[in-house]
């Protein structure tokens, strides 16, 4: 077996690649549904119905899309610079912590001032958290994969300490949660009688903004150059370390905003189950999008469909909702192969 580079890659194959990967992933996972004794068609029909079958279902799916756009963008920006930020989960919680610190009564500003401030604070907190492993990478050559991963565990314990300890809300009847965000700090709902909130608009704006940044600006050029070949970029005069650090601030910032968005748009107060692994899922979202910020909008929607649909499917059938995680993991692996096949063709001989 041999791989031969393709001369021309059409736009169609670039779009069709991830779609086919997703279809393949669902086909593979149908084996698990068969094993569980349910009908595959029924299961997937229930999955899509659960995610898209009603106004409320769609609103729930879009709510989950919102946070995934942020974590997906965070991974997409970092991976483009070959900065392996696997710490989205920790950065998300850092963002939520910062917003909790300022938004539970410390600042009693009007919504127009407070909400942007909370986002900014969350972004700064997430960015600063990623700066630590990034500086270790640029200055001491410590591999950032492991350090960002380990920081997730540390941050989660910090949050654990905070919500069980100093930040514990005495009004919460013993539940480990922080005080609620004050009303001016909450994002307005987008659709009546649903949980969908204005965070979606913020997320979409940031997706477009990130796309513009990566494609049309000097910074974006530098990030792409450093990711493609740091040695050559440095040789041409691109400030490599500065670019990596800047990338870290942007990526960590986006992940931090994911936490803020979830906190002030949905939950209202900090708990330990603010994120069931949105930071990690962001990696799948980014890869499915081929690291394209606009693609992240679509891939995060798809992943949200899978997760929300699987929840309702598992209630109806005897299929554990962990199937959603299996589907996204298989999608990630499948999209890797499809990306290879769009650039190479396999010759069997």
């Amino acid at each position, binding site marked *: 077996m041999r791989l031969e*580079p393709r001369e021309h890659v059409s736009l169609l194959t670039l779009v069709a690649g991830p779609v086919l990967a997703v279809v393949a992933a669902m086909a593979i996972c149908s084996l698990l549904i068969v094993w569980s004794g349910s009908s595959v068609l029924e299961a997937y029909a229930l999955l899509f119905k659960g995610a898209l079958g009603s106004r409320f279902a769609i609103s729930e799916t879009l709510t989950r899309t919102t946070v995934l756009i942020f974590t997906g963008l965070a991974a997409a920006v970092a991976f483009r610079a070959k900065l392996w930020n696997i710490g989205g989960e920790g950065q998300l919680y850092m963002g939520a912590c910062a917003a909790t610190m300022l938004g539970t009564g410390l600042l009693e500003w009007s919504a127009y001032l407070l909400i942007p401030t909370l986002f900014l604070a969350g972004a700064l907190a997430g960015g600063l958290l990623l700066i630590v492993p990034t500086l270790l990478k640029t200055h001491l050559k410590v591999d950032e994969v492991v350090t960002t991963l380990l920081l997730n565990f540390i941050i989660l314990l910090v949050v654990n300490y905070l919500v069980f300890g100093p930040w514990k809300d005495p009004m919460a009847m013993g539940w480990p949660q922080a005080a609620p965000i004050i009303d001016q700090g909450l994002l307005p709902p987008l659709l009546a009688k649903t949980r969908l909130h204005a965070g979606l608009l913020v997320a979409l704006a940031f997706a477009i903004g990130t796309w513009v940044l990566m494609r049309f600006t000097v910074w974006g050029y530098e990030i792409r150059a450093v990711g493609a*070949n740091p040695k050559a970029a440095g040789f041409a005069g691109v400030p490599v370390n500065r670019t990596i650090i800047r990338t870290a601030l942007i990526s960590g910032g986006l992940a931090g905003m994911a936490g803020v968005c979830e906190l002030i748009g949905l939950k209202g107060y900090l708990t330990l189950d603010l994120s069931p692994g949105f930071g990690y899922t962001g990696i799948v979202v980014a890869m499915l999008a081929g690291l394209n910020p606009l693609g992240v909008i679509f891939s995060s929607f798809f992943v949200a469909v899978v997760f929300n649909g699987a929840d309702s499917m598992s209630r109806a059938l005897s299929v554990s909702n962990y199937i959603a995680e299996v589907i996204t993991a298989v999608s990630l692996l499948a999209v890797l192969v499809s990306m290879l096949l769009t650039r190479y063709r396999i010759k069997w001989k």
Partner: protein
Amino acid sequence: MLHLKDNAVSQKTVLSLNNISKYFGPLLANDAINLSLAEGEVLALLGENGAGKTTLMNILFGHYVADAGTVTAFDEELPPGKPRAAIDAGVGMVHQHFTLAENLTVLENITLGTEPLWGVRQYQSRALAKLNQLSTEFGLEVNPRALVRDLSVGEMQRVEILKALYRDARILIMDEPTAVLTPPEVDSLFATLRQLIKSGLAVIFISHKLGEVMAISDRVAVLRSGKVVLEAETQATSREALAEAMVGRKIPEPKRVPQDAGEALLSLDQVTVLGAHHKRLLDRASLTLHAGEIVGIAGVSGNGQAQLADLLSGLQTLAEGHMTLRDHGELKPNPAHMVKQGIGRIVEDRNGLGLIGDMTITENLASENYKSREFSRLGFLRFNALQRYARELIEAFDVRCPGISAQVRKLSGGNMQKLVLARVLSKEPMVILAHQPTWGLDVGATAYVHEQLLAARQRGAGILLISEDLDELLELSDRIQVIYHGQLSESLDPDNISLQELGLLMSGQQRSDSQAA
């Protein structure tokens, strides 16, 4: 040098290549090649860079799979794509780029793959004995316990040859074996080869250097654009005939017209660069580059050329000494600074360092000045300006490409180098570093690069030309300085020095004063 033609060549064919064809995408690298090798002979495979020599040998050895054709060794057909089968059939290969693991010992590198993989231990003493016997028999001294990373280039090549002999190779393929050697090392390599022939080995000697081919081979085959265009007894042919066959067409090589050098532009004053373990990679080296002259740096690779090039690229920090640019004072070790000071840098590794393969032609052309007012405003890139600039440059420098949005890695080596020249020379720099500017290019592209460098000299630029190709140095340089163990010699006049003399200086021997330029 002694020719081997008195050596009785028996007629028994040990190896034959039958109708070998190989495509890389649309490129036909080998076109129905037929060749055979007899016991006890040296067959020289001659050809320009890109003619298909290395591809052919990689097919023979099983690294590549041919699209058509077969390889027969000792009357048995070799299964395609299996180096193991080639080795077992008695084929040994000394690769142009050594295939040695630097962090392992010589012995480990040699014995790898010679013992059954599932053996419970290694039989080191037996291996050592065999190795010692081979070393003494063929004059290939090397310390088996040394780590490969501590060896000199010449020693590494000995390890490569020993690797093949240790496996009882009967056919030895040597891919450009002299490219990294000093003239004395070449002589010693040839002596070894003669020993090997005497003991019955057959050798394929790949080269693009006519002199060596005439000296060592019994028979010669010339490859051009993937085809065998000439096959002859070495005795029955001539340098001229071979040269013509190799190049195919006459490409007028631009000539250097004498001109007076102007004011001093760049000076290196007693610069020292330290490597690992405080090794002096550049050792109090001094040179001055004047306007309108080309200063050539000759030397065997690994004597400090890379550090010299890195210094001017802004990638290397000085331990001692000064590097100053006219009117601008001390130069800082920072690539961006070098760009700002108007130093044009053409580096050896155009793939890994000079260009970003995964980005477009436009993006690569702008990589040194994307931040200028011309190409960016308020942090946004000005696409129209960038594209206009790119279109002008590929036109002016004749870069053959599908379009300015094509990825650079899809271009040929020659077109990549034109891209580098376009980026560097279009800014009309006064000081130019050219490190191995024609490495791996075919004759046409080489002539183009030479022409451009001479044109830059004409308009008054000072060029530091670092090259391992002595012909290139002698042709282009106004002055030559030899680099050896990090030290630079005094200036030599290329018109008054012979290849032999240059070779001696490159291997560290002093030159008598009377001959100094």
